[in-house]
């Protein structure tokens, strides 16, 4: 990866990780951020202590008020050991009748607000568990890990990456990204042969801009990516979180699907292989679309998806909503011109990722793909892709394949290795193939 500067600085987006929990935020000195699910899992931190630190650093949360923490960089992370001692041989004498914990829920709650560290809280809880000492070492460790995770006071601040964003969205709500799990996303990119210097087109909707963001990342600052969107404006949440530079964003141009259909009528896009021009109007490019690509005016509507997340940032008085600042490299009208020109000359890869019915979209965009090159379509449902399969069979396509992925995570611990007890049952479906020339 190009070394863009490896320090956490103001106005950059970062990913905050605490245990399994991931959340993005934009660094602003003096600001407090609320993380976690509403209720006792929620916490507010001031991340001033991270400014200037290297990405990937871990920090200890230090309580400064009831639920407000400051963070202090950790030199060496400490493993969570020292609580598990000699346990019972097995659980034969264990009688789990719900009364084994001497502390009441209220007492535990008070304990957590008392300023003790996570480790101390866990220690107190286990000391008060009558059954803890009778549990097997195995059960004890399981118990401690569960508790410790809950009260863990270490956070790590990461540079946003497609890996982290993809994981974050899927954990927060798979529907934010139409079930596009990291394995499906990864295959989209490979199967469409996305690379630096290439020319690509993506149709993306309902996936928070994650596909375009991932394509941009794989392209560096070289090549062309046309993002065809549906509705009033493109979804670009993930693009904005990636801290792309202007030169990286110059690769990207937007065009709405409606405009694309119009343009095609205007013959601007026909590249000789497809139907000839029949109309003559070419002007008034930016008149029908409401969207204003202007770096001074953040597109507020687009943040709506993000605001739906589990975190209710308004609840915490001292936590303000960070204003987004987006980089727009050209005006909308110019974007349409750039996009049209790239499509007219043909692209080397096509990706469609949406919950919308993919048949007409794919068939239309396929005309811009150069023969011999690959396309990939993602859908959270199998049935529309089956329909598309038959549609494409009768067009000029070859090596058509429909697939689904299994992704299984493992717990790897000494003598306790097994697949995770829960797995994701739905990561979406892929239909991919290669365009071939029309008969000559």
């Amino acid at each position, binding site marked *: 990866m190009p070394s863009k500067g490896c320090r956490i600085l103001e106005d950059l987006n970062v990913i905050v990780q605490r245990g399994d929990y991931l959340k993005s935020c934009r660094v602003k000195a003096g600001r407090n951020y609320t993380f976690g699910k509403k209720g006792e899992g929620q916490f507010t931190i001031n991340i001033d202590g991270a400014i200037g630190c290297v990405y990937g650093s871990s920090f200890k949360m230090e309580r400064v008020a009831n639920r407000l923490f400051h963070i202090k960089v950790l030199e060496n992370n400490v493993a969570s050991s020292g609580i598990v001692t000699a346990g019972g041989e*097995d*659980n*034969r*004498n*264990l*009688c*789990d009748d719900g009364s084994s914990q001497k502390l009441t829920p209220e007492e535990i709650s008070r304990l957590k607000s008392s300023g003790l560290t996570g480790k101390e809280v866990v220690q107190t809880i286990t000391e008060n568990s009558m059954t803890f000492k009778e549990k*097997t070492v*195995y059960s004890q460790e399981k118990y401690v890990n569960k508790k410790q995770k809950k009260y863990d006071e270490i956070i790590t601040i990461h540079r946003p990456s497609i890996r982290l964003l993809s994981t974050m969205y899927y954990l927060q709500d*798979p*529907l*934010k990204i*139409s*079930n596009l799990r990291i394995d499906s996303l990864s295959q989209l990119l490979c199967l469409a042969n996305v690379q630096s210097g290439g020319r690509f087109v993506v149709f993306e*909707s*309902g996936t928070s801009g994650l596909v375009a963001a991932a394509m941009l990342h794989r392209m560096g600052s070289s090549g062309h990516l046309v993002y065809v969107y*549906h*509705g*009033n404006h493109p*979804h670009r949440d993930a693009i904005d979180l990636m801290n792309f530079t202007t030169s990286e964003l110059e690769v990207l141009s937007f065009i709405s*699907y*409606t405009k694309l*259909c*119009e343009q095609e*009528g205007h013959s601007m896009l026909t590249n000789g292989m497809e139907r000839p021009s029949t109309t003559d109007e070419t002007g008034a490019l930016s008149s*029908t679309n409401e969207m204003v690509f202007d770096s001074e005016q953040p597109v507020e*509507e687009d943040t*709506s*998806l993000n605001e*739906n997340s589990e975190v209710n940032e308004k609840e915490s008085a001292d936590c303000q909503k960070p204003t987004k600042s987006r980089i727009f490299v050209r005006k909308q009208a110019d974007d349409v011109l750039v996009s049209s020109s790239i499509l007219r000359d043909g692209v080397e890869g096509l990706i469609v990722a949406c*919950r*919308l*019915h993919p*048949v*007409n*979209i794919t068939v*239309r965009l396929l005309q811009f793909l150069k023969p011999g090159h690959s396309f990939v379509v993602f859908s*959270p*449902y*199998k*049935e*529309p892709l089956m329909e598309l399969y038959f549609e494409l069979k009768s067009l000029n396509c070859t090596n058509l394949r429909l697939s689904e992925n299994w992704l*299984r*995570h493992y717990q790897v611990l000494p*003598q*306790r*290795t*097994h*697949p*995770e*007890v*829960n*797995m*994701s*049952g*739905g990561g979406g479906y892929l239909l991919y193939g290669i365009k071939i020339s029309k008969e000559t």
Partner: protein
Amino acid sequence: MSFSRCKRLIEIGDTVILYISVTNIYALEVKPTVLNRHGKEIENVFQTRYGCLKITDLIGKEFGSKITLPKGWVHVLYPTPELWTITLPHRTQILYTPDIAMVITQLEIGPGSIVCEAGTGSGSLSHALLRAVGPTGKLHTCDFHKERVQVALDEFTRHGFSDRVTVSHRDVCVDGLGIDGEADAVFLDLPKPWEALPHAVISIKAEGGRICSFSPCIEQVCRTCETMAALGMKEITTLECLAREFHVKYITVPIIPDSSDAAEELKPDYNTETQAKKMKLDIKTSDSEDTNSEDTKVKEIVPSTSKASRKCSESKFMSAISNLKMPGHTGYLTFATVPPGLKRTC
């Protein structure tokens, strides 16, 4: 009440299954009264989201019938080991139906079989074993946890299996299974199954039999397989069974217009937020779905072709959507054959 004999009407003492929704299913014992926390006998009432169910109201009702409650209705079903498995009180981790089904076939258990089980746990597998061995067979189940042994015995008796079961309190790794050359099959669900394997061989008939060990961790499996081979067992096989459940529903996805004049149809409220919410209804498992709303839904899902053809902007299709969260692992099942005349050492 017996799980194994069919009857039409509900009587006092029966165990019945109360079906409220796909995720709200309960097993109830038909007792007119219960003791409250002060030890006083009070009327037995079961609270549901549709209001109270007086247990006495069930008496004389047909299995499979609908019970009307103040705010809706529920169904009362005949108990089976499978329904028991999803409703039983968990005293331990339990085995579920995909694993249980495989265990019974692989152990070749049928009426008349003599089977040993260690440990009893919550009795989830035991019920299926008791059904399989039939009135002419026998299940010898044991557990090292004394309290669980008593609870299990009471449960088996209430469920009509007392004729075919023994439950004993023992540590099979030390004391063995208490059966010598009698068993057709042995099932082990123990932290250290390899310690019990020599005892398992002793319990098997001289003409041979089948053994299964269930373990969640692969290290346990490795050690088990090694011991099985060392003891001379044959056909050693390890496998994993996972059931993937689908939600069957009609899905509607928008077809975006291709003609440029259709662009005006895009209303500003047709935004991603409502789309995402709509989708949530589609993809997410409808955990809160209940019998009552299920019935009303049936009416909704009839394809309205007229609407679809009018707007020409959506596609409706049947889809079987897999649960976003599905079981990723229960345990590894290792099966082996004790060949006839295998030398028994312990």
